[in-house]
C-alpha cells in the first residue's frame, strides 16, 4: 500500500512540469492553430534561464522568484518569436507555420550552446525542501509534494483566466471561431501575441520548475516535445483541463509501467495515445475539429493539369543531364545525387497524400524505414538475393501502410496526424527494443547490393531509374481518375460521398500507395548505405519530409521534390560550418517569410506577376 501511494505521488509530481508545458502548447494551438514544434525549445530556455537566475539570486525568494522570472522572460522570447517569425506567415496554408517553428528550434539549439556551453548543468535544490517525508513508511521528496500542491493552483488560475476574464472569453471565442472574433472588432494579432506570451511563459515555467528534479541540458528540447504532444492530443487540443488530466494520466501510468513492466518505457505513452484516439477521436476533452473540415484554409488550390510540352521537354533535359553526370562528375557527386533522389522520392510520397489527399501524416518515416527494414531483415536472416529483398521493400511497406491506415483514416486533421505519429512510434519502439532480431539501436549492417550494382555508378543509375520513375508515377497518378477522386475527398468529403465515392476507402488506398512508395525509397536507401538503424523511422525523419513538402509548396505538385533538393543540398553544404544549425535555422525562417506559399508556389506567383509565366502554364 505504501509503495502504491508513493508511486502515485511520484507520478503526480512528474505531471507538474509536463502539464505546464502541455497547457502552453494546447493554448497556442487552440487559438492560433499553430503546431509549435519549438515549444520544447522554450521549455529548455526556461530551464537555462532559471538556472542562471538561481545562481545569482539567493535564498527562498531567489529560488521561487527565479522560477517566476524565467516564465516571464521566456514569455517575452515567445512574443519576439511570434512577432518576427510567425506573424508574417499567418495567411499561409494550414500547418505551414510548423516549418518556421522548426527553424526556430535550430536557432535556439545553437544559441543555447553558445551561451551556456555544452556541459550538462545540474539544477539547484529548492531551499527548505531538500529532504524527504515518510508517507506510510515510503520516502517521498518534499519538493515532489510542493509540485503536487502547486499544480492545482496553476490549473485553477488558468481556468479562472479562461472562463472568468474578458480576455479569457476572447481567447475561447478565438479558439472556436477566429474569423467571427475578428469580425466583431477584436484585434486578432494582439490576441495571438498575448496567447503566445502566455503559452511560452507556461513552457518557461515548466522548464524552471523541474530544475530541482533534474537540470538543464541541450537535448531536453527534443526529449520533451513528443510527450508534450501526446499529452495535448490525449487531453484534446486546446483544452486546459484536458491537458491536466492527460498529463496526470500519462505520468501515473508511466510510473506504474516502470514498476511492473520496466521495458515499457519507450512505448507506453504511444499505446495510451493510440487507444484514446481510437475510442475518443478528439481526445478526452477535445471538441470536434472545425478548421479544414470543409474546403481548405487560405487560398483555394488551383486545378491541376499535366505538364505542357515545355515542361515535359525540360524534365526530359534534366533527366538526360542527370544521366550524363557519371561521365564528368566525381563519385561523391553521384553519391550525393543518389541521396537526394532517394529523399525526394520519400518526400514526394508524403506530398501525394498530404497535398492531393489532404491527409497530414506525422509518421511517414515508418514506411520509409519499414521498407528498408524489410529488405535488411530478409538479407540478414534468409540470405535473400538483393533483387528479391529490394522488391519486397515497397510491398512490405505497403502492407504496413494498409494496416496502419485502416486505423488512422477514421480520424481527420491534426488527430489523424497524431495517430500516424503514435503508430510510427509503436513500430519504432518495436524495432528499437527487439534487439535480438533487429539489432536494436545497433541496427543491421552489411546490407549491400548484388555484384552488378555494387559500383557507385551502377547504383546511381539504379536509383535514378527507380527514384525518378517513382516520382513520375506518383505525379501520373495524381492526374489519373484516382487522383481526381482523391482530390475530391480532400476538398469536400461530404460532396464526394454524395456523388458515390467511398471516401474512406479512397483515402485508405492512397495512404497505402504512398506508404509503398516511401518503402521503395527505403529500399533504395538501405542498399546505398549498407546498413539501417532505427533513426530512419524516427519522428525526426518524418518531420524532415514534412518540412520539405511545406517548404517546397504544399499546394503544388512538385513542392516535395523541389523542397527536398533544396534542403538536402543546403544541408550538405552548411554542415561544414561551425554554427550550421543557426544558419540553417535562419535560412529556413527567411525562406518561410519570403515565400509563404513555399518555394514553388511563390516562384509561380512571382512568375505570373512579372508576366514570365502565363496563367495556363502556371497551373502545374
Amino acid at each position, binding site marked *: 500500500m505504501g509503495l502504491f501511494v508513493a508511486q502515485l505521488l511520484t507520478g503526480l509530481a512528474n505531471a507538474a512540469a509536463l502539464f505546464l508545458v502541455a497547457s502552453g502548447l494546447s493554448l497556442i494551438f487552440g487559438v492560433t492553430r499553430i503546431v509549435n514544434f519549438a515549444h520544447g525549445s522554450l521549455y529548455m530556455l526556461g530551464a537555462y534561464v532559471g538556472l542562471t537566475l538561481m545562481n545569482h539570486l539567493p535564498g527562498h525568494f531567489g529560488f521561487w522568484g527565479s522560477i517566476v522570472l524565467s516564465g516571464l522572460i521566456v514569455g517575452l522570447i515567445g512574443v519576439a518569436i511570434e512577432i518576427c517569425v510567425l506573424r508574417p506567415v499567418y495567411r499561409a496554408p494550414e500547418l505551414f507555420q510548423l516549418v518556421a517553428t522548426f527553424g526556430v528550434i535550430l536557432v535556439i539549439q545553437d544559441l543555447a550552446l553558445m551561451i551556456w556551453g555544452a556541459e550538462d548543468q*545540474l539544477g539547484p535544490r529548492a531551499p527548505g525542501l531538500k529532504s524527504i517525508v515518510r508517507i506510510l513508511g515510503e520516502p517521498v*521528496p518534499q519538493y515532489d509534494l510542493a509540485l503536487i500542491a502547486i499544480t492545482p493552483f496553476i490549473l485553477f488560475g488558468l481556468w479562472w483566466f479562461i472562463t472568468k476574464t474578458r480576455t479569457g472569453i476572447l481567447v475561447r471565442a478565438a479558439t472556436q471561431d477566429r474569423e467571427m472574433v475578428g469580425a466583431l472588432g477584436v484585434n486578432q494579432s494582439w490576441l495571438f501575441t498575448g496567447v503566445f506570451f502566455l503559452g511560452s511563459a507556461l513552457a518557461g515555467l515548466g522548464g524552471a520548475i523541474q530544475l530541482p528534479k533534474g*537540470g538543464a541540458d541541450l537535448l531536453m528540447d527534443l526529449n520533451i516535445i513528443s510527450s508534450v504532444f501526446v499529452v495535448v492530443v490525449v487531453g484534446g487540443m486546446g483544452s486546459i483541463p484536458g491537458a491536466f488530466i492527460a498529463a496526470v494520466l500519462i505520468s501515473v501510468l508511466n510510473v506504474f509501467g516502470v514498476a511492473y513492466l*520496466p*521495458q515499457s518505457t*519507450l512505448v507506453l505513452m504511444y499505446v495510451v495515445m493510440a487507444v484514446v484516439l481510437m475510442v475518443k477521436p478528439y481526445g478526452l476533452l477535445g471538441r470536434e475539429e472545425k478548421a479544414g473540415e470543409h474546403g481548405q484554409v487560405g487560398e483555394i488550390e488551383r486545378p491541376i493539369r499535366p505538364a505542357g510540352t515545355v515542361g515535359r521537354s525540360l524534365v526530359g533535359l534534366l533527366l538526360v543531364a542527370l544521366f550524363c553526370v557519371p561521365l564528368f562528375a566525381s563519385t561523391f557527386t553521384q553519391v550525393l545525387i543518389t541521396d537526394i533522389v532517394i529523399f525526394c522520392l520519400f518526400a514526394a510520397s508524403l506530398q501525394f497524400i498530404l497535398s492531393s489527399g489532404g491527409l497530414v501524416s506525422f509518421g511517414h518515416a515508418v514506411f520509409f524505414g519499414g521498407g528498408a527494414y524489410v529488405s535488411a531483415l530478409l538479407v540478414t536472416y534468409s540470405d535473400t538475393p538483393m533483387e528479391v529483398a529490394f522488391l519486397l521493400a515497397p510491398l512490405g511497406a505497403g502492407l504496413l501502410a494498409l494496416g496502419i491506415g485502416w486505423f488512422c483514416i477514421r480520424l481527420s486533421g491534426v488527430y489523424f496526424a497524431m495517430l500516424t505519429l503514435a503508430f510510427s512510434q509503436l513500430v519504432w519502439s518495436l524495432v528499437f527494443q527487439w534487439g535480438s532480431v533487429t539489432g536494436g539501436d545497433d*541496427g543491421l549492417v552489411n546490407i549491400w547490393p548484388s555484384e552488378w550494382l555494387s559500383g557507385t555508378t551502377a547504383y546511381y543509375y539504379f536509383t535514378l531509374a527507380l527514384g525518378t520513375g517513382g516520382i513520375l508515377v506518383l505525379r501520373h497518378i495524381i492526374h489519373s481518375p484516382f487522383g481526381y477522386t482523391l482530390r475530391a475527398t480532400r476538398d469536400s468529403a461530404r460532396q464526394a460521398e454524395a456523388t458515390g465515392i467511398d471516401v474512406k476507402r479512397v483515402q485508405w488506398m492512397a495512404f497505402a500507395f504512398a506508404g509503398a512508395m516511401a518503402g521503395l525509397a527505403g529500399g533504395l536507401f538501405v542498399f546505398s548505405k549498407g546498413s539501417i538503424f532505427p533513426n530512419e523511422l524516427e519522428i525526426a525523419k518524418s518531420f524532415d519530409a514534412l518540412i520539405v513538402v511545406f517548404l517546397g509548396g504544399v499546394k503544388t505538385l512538385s513542392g516535395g521534390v523541389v523542397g527536398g533538393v533544396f534542403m538536402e543540398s543546403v544541408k550538405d553544404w552548411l554542415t561544414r560550418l561551425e554554427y550550421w544549425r543557426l544558419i540553417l535555422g535562419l535560412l529556413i525562417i527567411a525562406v518561410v517569410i519570403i515565400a509563404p506559399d513555399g518555394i514553388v508556389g511563390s516562384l509561380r506567383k512571382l512568375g505570373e506577376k512579372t508576366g514570365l509565366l502565363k496563367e495556363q502554364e502556371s497551373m502545374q
Partner: protein
Amino acid sequence: MKQVKTLLAAAALAVIGSSVHAADTIKIGEINHYKRLAAFAEPYKKGIELALSEINGSGGVLGKELEFIFRDDQGKPGEAVKIAEELMTRDGAVMLTGTILSNVGLAISSFAAEKGYIYLAAEPLADALVWKSGNPYTFRLRASTYVQAAMLAEEAAKTDAIRYATIAPNYAYGTAAVEAFKVNLKKLKPEVEFVTEQWPALFKIDAGSEVQAIESAKPDAIYNVTFGPDLAKFVREGTTRGVFEGRKVYGLLTGEPEYLEPLKDEAPEGWFVTGYPWYSFTSGPEKEFVDAYIAEFPDETPKIGSLVGYMTAKSIAALIDKAGSTETAALLDAFKDLKVETPMGEITYRSLDHQSTMGAYVGTTTLKDGKGVMVDWSYKDPAPYMPSDDEIKAMRPAD
C-alpha cells in the same frame, strides 16, 4: 516544370567545389556528432588538436603535415556514410576515424569494409564493432562495453552481495552493458541473482519511479549504466530517497569527468566506477598529457574524450610512420600489432581482433573540495577481461 529548375540547381550545387587536393599534407577524415553530442565531442576534438600540434611541431609524419578534416554528421548513420565517401574520394583523406555513437560507428565500419577504406573507431563502445560485425578494415581504440563491465563484475564478485538491481538506458549500449555484467558476475559467483532490471528511455528517465522500483526490490547492490542527464537525475532522486544507503553501487563510465563533474557536490560517494582520474596523476606520461592539455586550453580540464581524441591522433601518426606510406595496403599491414606510446602507456592494436589494448581506470568515488573524484584507483589492462582468443575468433566473421 519547377522540378526542372531546382533539380538543375542541385546538380550545379553538387558539382561546385570539387576541391583541389593539396599534396603537402596528409589528411584524415574525422566524422563526429559535434552538435548533437557537443558535451562529448568538444573535448575529443581538443584532444586531437593538442596531439596534432605536437605531431606537426616535431616535423609531422613522413615529412608532411598531418591534418584532420572535421565533419559533422548530425548523429545520423546515413549522413555519416555519405560524408565518409566525400572525405575519401573528394577531400583526399587517407583513412577515416571518429564517432561516439555506436550505431554511426557500425555504419561507417560496414561502409569502410565494402569500399576498402580504413576506419579507426575512436569512441564507440559496441562490442560488435570488432567482434560479431568485425571486418578487416575496422579498428577500435577504446576498451569496449564488455571489458569495462567485466572489470566492475570482478570487483562486485569480491563482496558478499547476492541480490543485484540493474538500471540501464533502454537501447543497445544499455542492454549490452547489463548482459556483459551479468555474464561475468555469474561466472565468478554463480549464486548471485538479479532481482530487478530497470530500463529508462535514454535521456528521458523518470528517476523518482525508477528509484522506487529499485528500492522495492530490496537489492544488496546496484549496477548503474545511466549517464549524462539521466545519471544526474538518478543520483539526485536516489540520494534524496536514500536508495544508495548501505548498498554497493557499481557504475559503468560514472567516473568519467564528462558525467561526474556536472554532479558537483552531489556526486555519489562510495560507488565503484570506471572513469578517468586525471586530477590525481603525479608523474609519468599520464601526468604529462594532463599538463600539456591544461597548458593548451587553460579554461579546461581534460575529459576522457580529450584523452581518446589525443590517443586517436597519436595512433594514426604512429600508423603512418610505421607504414611509411599512405596506401591502404601498407596501412593495413602496419596496423598489425601496431604499438603506440600513449599517456596510458604503450598500447597495441591486436591483429587478432583489431582492438587496441587501451585499458580503463577503475576506482571508488568520493567528494573532495565539493567535487566528485575517484580515489583508490588503478589502471586495468583489458586483456584479462576479454573472452578467450578462440571465442573471439569464433565471433568474428572470417577476415
